[in-house]
């Protein structure tokens, strides 16, 4: 797995658009992903960043977004410095047919992430949480890096 890109933003809502921008831009340039898969990944990352930002309460807390890939997959890891949480202790929602469902405006983020990406792994401790999201897809054929050699033109 090769580290492509590292982005660190303040844990504040105004920076979440940048995280989306970077992820969708990398996903479209590195991977042969259909546009709707890119949208899926973008939304999943946005949900993970929202949770990371909401969990951060200290001034100066930051959220880190790591993008890695290898031949077959693209991985985005969102890490925060929040207090962590227990994934197994999350409440479950009433089914959407139940009028009670309207009392739950929250709690849609993690189910969305699970549906949108091929694979997701949560690692949470009192030092923070990391959410690793993976999508599979063929790499684009990249133009090999080459010497500019403009001097040779003359």
């Amino acid at each position, binding site marked *: 797995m090769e580290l492509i890109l590292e982005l660190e933003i303040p844990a504040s809502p105004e920076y979440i658009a940048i995280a989306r921008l970077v992820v969708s831009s990398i996903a479209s340039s590195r991977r042969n992903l259909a546009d709707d898969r890119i949208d899926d990944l973008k939304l999943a990352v*946005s949900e993970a960043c929202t949770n990371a930002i909401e969990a951060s309460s200290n001034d100066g807390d930051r959220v880190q977004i790591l993008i890695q890939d290898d031949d077959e997959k693209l991985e985005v890891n969102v890490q925060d410095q929040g207090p962590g949480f227990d994934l197994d202790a999350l409440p479950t929602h009433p089914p959407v047919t139940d009028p009670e469902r309207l009392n739950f405006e929250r709690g849609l983020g993690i189910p969305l992430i699970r549906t949108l990406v091929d694979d997701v792994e949560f690692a949470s401790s009192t030092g923070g949480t990391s959410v690793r999201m993976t999508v599979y897809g063929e790499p684009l054929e990249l133009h090999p890096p080459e010497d500019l050699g403009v001097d040779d033109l003359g």
Partner: protein
Amino acid sequence: MDLGLEVDDDHAPYTVLAVKGEVDVYTAPRLREKLVELVSQGRHQIIVDLEGVDFLDSTGLGVLVGGLKRLRSHDGDLGLVCTQPRILKVFEITGLTKVFAIHDSVAAAVAG
């Protein structure tokens, strides 16, 4: 990265709120405030037009569900206009297509 919020009063008894831009944890509070303001003005039949929305996440969904809940408690309703597949998908995955009436156009929404 600013959220566009335009109120159209030409469809009484419906109030149409056209949203433009990205609805996320940064911008959703403004959508929520606008909905609260409309409801407090006694507008209880609201159509939220999402055709100009480029991105919508669960925070945006939460604000819409909250608005619907508030309107229902006033015997009102909150309908949506949305035809964009990538936005519709978010409602489908979360099962909210069963909670909201989603229309193809403002005309269809105010007709029905």
